[in-house]
């Protein structure tokens, strides 16, 4: 086997290994967290990054032909569609859970949220200044 083929094998294996590690992390995260909105963070990571790494590795294995282009199309499609799936699922959870306030904070409207964020920002700045002075 020539050197180019060895390099292709090594790099492809590397990408697939990274993808598998991401899948394992996703699976572990899904079982580790205790609420579905937290688990969705882990699942969304696997759906986009994990499968992209695996498919890029497989693209390197396959070389330059039509199959590679189709795999690239799969990656593009998944990068558009998976985050929307997560968004829709989290809306499902937020709409059908009666005691959502025990899991996360709910703001009534946009102005309250902005005020909270501005207050938190100001407090953070003053804390930093105190730390730097002392």
């Amino acid at each position, binding site marked *: 086997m020539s050197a180019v083929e060895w390099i292709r094998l090594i790099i492809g294996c590397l990408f697939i290994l990274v993808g598998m590690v991401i899948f394992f992390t996703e699976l572990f995260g899904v079982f580790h967290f205790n609420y579905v909105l937290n688990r969705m963070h882990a699942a969304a990571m696997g759906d986009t990054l994990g499968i992209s790494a695996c498919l890029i590795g497989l693209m390197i294995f396959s070389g330059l032909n039509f199959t590679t282009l189709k795999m690239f199309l799969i990656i593009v*499609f998944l990068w558009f569609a998976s985050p929307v799936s997560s968004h*829709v699922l989290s*809306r499902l959870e937020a*709409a059908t859970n009666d005691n959502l306030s025990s899991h996360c904070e709910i703001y009534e409207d*946009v102005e309250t949220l902005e005020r909270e*964020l501005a207050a938190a920002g100001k407090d953070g700045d003053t804390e930093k200044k105190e730390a730097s002075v002392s």
Partner: protein
Amino acid sequence: MSRKKTAEEYEKTFAFRFFRWLSGEKDPYIGNVEMQPQKKYEPDHEAALRREKEHDAIMDKVYDTGHNRWLHLFHRLYQTTSVLFCLFLIALLLVTVSYLPANGTVTRPVNNEVSARYIEKGLEETGAVNIVAGMILDYRAFDTLGESHVLFVATITVLILLRLNKTEKDEAEVSDRRFEPKNDAILQVVATFLVPVIIIFGIYIILNGHLGPGGGFSGGAVIGAGLVLYLNAFGFKKTERFFTEKTYKWVCFFSLSFYCLAKSYSFYTGANHLHSVIPKGTPGAILSSGLILPLNIAVGLVVACTIYAFYAMFRKGGF
């Protein structure tokens, strides 16, 4: 005169927005992705009661449902006749099946020379690289015609069963789906990109039916799924701008009659040992294998319309 812009003008320029994004002062998501509150729906009790009373009055005056014995007789007769007809049909089909040859004999259709002929001479006689497509759309095109008609008949049957009257339709349409989330901004933006991609992919599968796995049925299912996604993202009002009952009628009519006429020409020339003008082409090219490409397109259109129609009928009671 100073060339400096006033504060209001500066806020409208691109540079202001760019530097604000760069510094991260304004959160880009606040105020942008929340859903607007839905309109409250007030149920109209008087109108519903009035409609019920009118319906009962009409049934009473015109049909006299309370005392009409012809109506009862017809009802009983219909029930018994339908049961008897089903039993007769079942018996007839079972008797026909029992005439088939037993398992393992030479004359059984699985073991005779037909399948070998299809595999060996499929490519040169039909011109299609995909011999399954060559078989269902060339050797056995009549069966596929029957299947397309079955899809059409199934849609019509479900339409008859689930159909609502005009007045019922308005009331039911609002009350059945009024709690669903509508006009999700993220889904709409992504659907504007993804639906054309899905439909183009479905067209690709249909056009490549004779060169590889695919064909009319799977490609039509993909196009139908793209239409269902559009419907979910944008709602019925926008989808009815381009897909109504009329569209469905004309698309199915043209596809099925084109299939019939095209295959009739093939049957006519084949049965009378005439030479047909449809070229077979070189295998592997996209414009090859005679009539298989147009027939794939016809079947794909029927399947796409059927899938969308089933979804719309179960959500809305019509389309």
